[in-house]
């Protein structure tokens, strides 16, 4: 039987003799394999990202925003016409059995100065409950208290990014920073949480007591008006109950008649996560479809080009058979040629797919990782396509009648 190094050399020589044709033939495989790689790594990245996100936002979370969804402009933190109040938040905690904790929030952007350092960040006025709701711990120092809130103390909790920008490696706890020129004492620094799905740095934030925020920093339209609130349900199963209870309560409190639109929106973050997971899944399925179609088309392309090659080289095959090539010598030669096409295409596809995945991961802030398993699977797919679609042409070649083949012009 013919040896592997020999048929490999023959295969490469044959493919080099038609570089352009070989390259075009590989295209399907290249795209297919790149799609497989992208599918696997983007799918895994998105799933992991969503899992991280759920963990970092806090579980069983609802967000109540001023304004209705259907009226268009209601976006988190941007409630142009606040309709919610601190009293609403207190009522929700008191009267909705499915709710375990509520934090009202009033936010704005402000310049924060320490010494000659300054940094523009999001400042949020809230209650101590926020840390429980977001499952966020203080890395150094301590959280502010109900006392701080009652007295509208000028104290603040600092996100890790802000601390780093203003203080570098020093511990800010106990230092005084100026927010909108008003001095605030830093009483704690929060643990680092990282970026959100949309690429926002969650640690670029300062929390102050809501009373302080409303009196000193962002003058509310009416006292007690807030932009939004974060609500924690007692359990994942209770999320929908909580949503219904809050809606009913707020409609009642805001005196919204039946048939009238809500002037607030309750968002279920877990649902949003589910949506993200669904999108990732759809993307995976889509890439999977692209991958399988490309691999199929690529395989048919290989078969087609191999059939052409067998016809073109009828004389060569005749010579080989005449000097003693057996059925499997000829078959292996052409299968090897198809395999070489698909594997070279596969390698290019793996490289392009990896670059693509890293780029996509970067653009969508997903953890990027080229899984060795993904590479192995794609390589396996490419090899399978080569052997499968190369077999028929090889089979045809091996059955040629040597006399007719030698006479072929």
């Amino acid at each position, binding site marked *: *039987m*013919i*040896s592997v*190094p*020999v048929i490999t050399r023959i295969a490469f*020589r044959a493919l080099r*003799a038609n570089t352009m044709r070989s390259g075009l033939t590989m295209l399907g495989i290249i795209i297919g394999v790149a799609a497989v790689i992208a599918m696997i790594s983007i799918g895994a990245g998105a799933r992991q990202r969503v899992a991280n996100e759920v963990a970092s936002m806090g579980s069983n979370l609802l967000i109540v925003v001023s304004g209705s969804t259907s009226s268009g402009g209601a976006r988190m933190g941007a409630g142009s016409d606040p309709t919610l109040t601190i009293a609403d938040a207190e009522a929700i905690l008191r009267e909705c059995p499915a709710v375990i904790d509520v934090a009202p929030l009033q936010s704005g952007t402000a310049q924060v100065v320490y010494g000659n350092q300054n940094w523009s960040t999001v400042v949020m006025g809230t209650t101590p409950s926020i840390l429980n709701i977001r499952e966020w711990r203080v890395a150094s120092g301590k959280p502010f208290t109900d006392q701080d809130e009652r007295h509208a103390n000028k104290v603040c909790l600092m996100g890790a990014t802000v601390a780093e920008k203003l203080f570098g490696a020093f511990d800010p706890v106990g230092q005084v920073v100026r927010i909108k020129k008003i001095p605030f004492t830093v009483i704690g620094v929060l643990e680092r949480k990282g970026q959100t799905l949309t690429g926002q740095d969650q640690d670029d934030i300062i929390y102050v007591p809501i009373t302080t925020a409303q009196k000193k920093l962002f003058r509310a339209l009416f006292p007690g008006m807030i932009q939004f609130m974060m609500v924690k349900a007692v359990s994942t199963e209770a999320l929908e109950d909580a949503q219904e209870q809050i809606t009913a309560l707020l409609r009642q409190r805001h005196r919204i008649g039946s048939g009238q639109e809500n002037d607030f929106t309750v968002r279920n973050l877990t649902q949003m996560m589910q949506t993200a997971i669904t999108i990732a899944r759809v993307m995976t399925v889509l890439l999977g479809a692209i991958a399988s179609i490309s691999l199929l088309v690529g395989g048919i392309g290989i078969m087609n080009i191999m059939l052409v090659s067998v016809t073109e080289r009828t*004389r*060569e095959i*005749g*010579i*080989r*058979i*005449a*000097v*003693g*090539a*057996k*059925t499997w*010598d000829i078959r292996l030669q052409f299968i090897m040629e198809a395999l070489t096409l698909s594997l070279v295409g596969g390698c290019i596809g793996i490289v392009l797919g990896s670059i693509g995945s890293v780029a996509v991961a970067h653009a969508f802030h997903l953890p990027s990782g080229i899984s060795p398993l993904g590479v192995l699977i794609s390589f396996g797919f490419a090899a399978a396509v080569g052997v499968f679609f190369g077999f028929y042409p090889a089979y045809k070649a091996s059955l040629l009648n*040597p*006399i007719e083949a*030698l006479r072929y012009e």
Partner: protein
Amino acid sequence: MPRRNDLGMQTGGTTPHSPETVLPLISVQQVSKIYTLGEHRVTALNSISVSIHAGDFVAIMGPSGSGKSTFMNIIGCLDRPSSGTYYLNGQDVGTLSRDCLAEIRNKTIGFVFQGFNLLPRTTALENVELPLLYNGTPAHERRERALEALRVVGLGDRWHHYPNQLSGGQQQRVTIARAIVNNASIVLADEPTGNLDTKTSMEIMELFVRLNQTAGITIIVVTHEPDIAAYGRRLIRFLDGVIVGDEVKGVA
């Protein structure tokens, strides 16, 4: 190890052939070959019987379409007869599988055709190595033996040339080197000089004579030219698929 380094050695020319005592190398018994083209039936060979002994040098002549190539293809195990039996070295070849025939062609038969039949974009050396690829000869030995065969045909210094860089005569020498590289005992040449000028033709025929006399290789040459046929010790004439003449030189 089937190596034979006696290509350059004198082993004596004629093999004494008396059909009664020595088993013929090639023995064809009532072999017919009929091609069917739709309704049409062409009898290319019509119940031919002939024996050829090892070490012989046979010339075959006959008008176009008389069945010479068909005959060569059958004794070269490239084709099977429609009826009749072909014994090669006493073995009934008709019973063998396609792969067994490939092995026989590889080990005992060398082909030289009119159209050279070299692989394009492949060096002379690699063309000569070709039969050795299919019998598991290790790479270094392949190279050694191919170079040796090229030396025998006088192309030792042209091993790295591609077919399109060689003259017709040189290309035919490469084919001959390929035919003998595996120590074939039979070389079948179907109009080997058909594309060559007279002088080159004579050189090629001298080479066959040398292979026949020094290595004892059985040579069968099909030709249309009496000058070429004159190199053979035996002359078989074909006409319409039957043998109409079979004479040994000097016996006439």
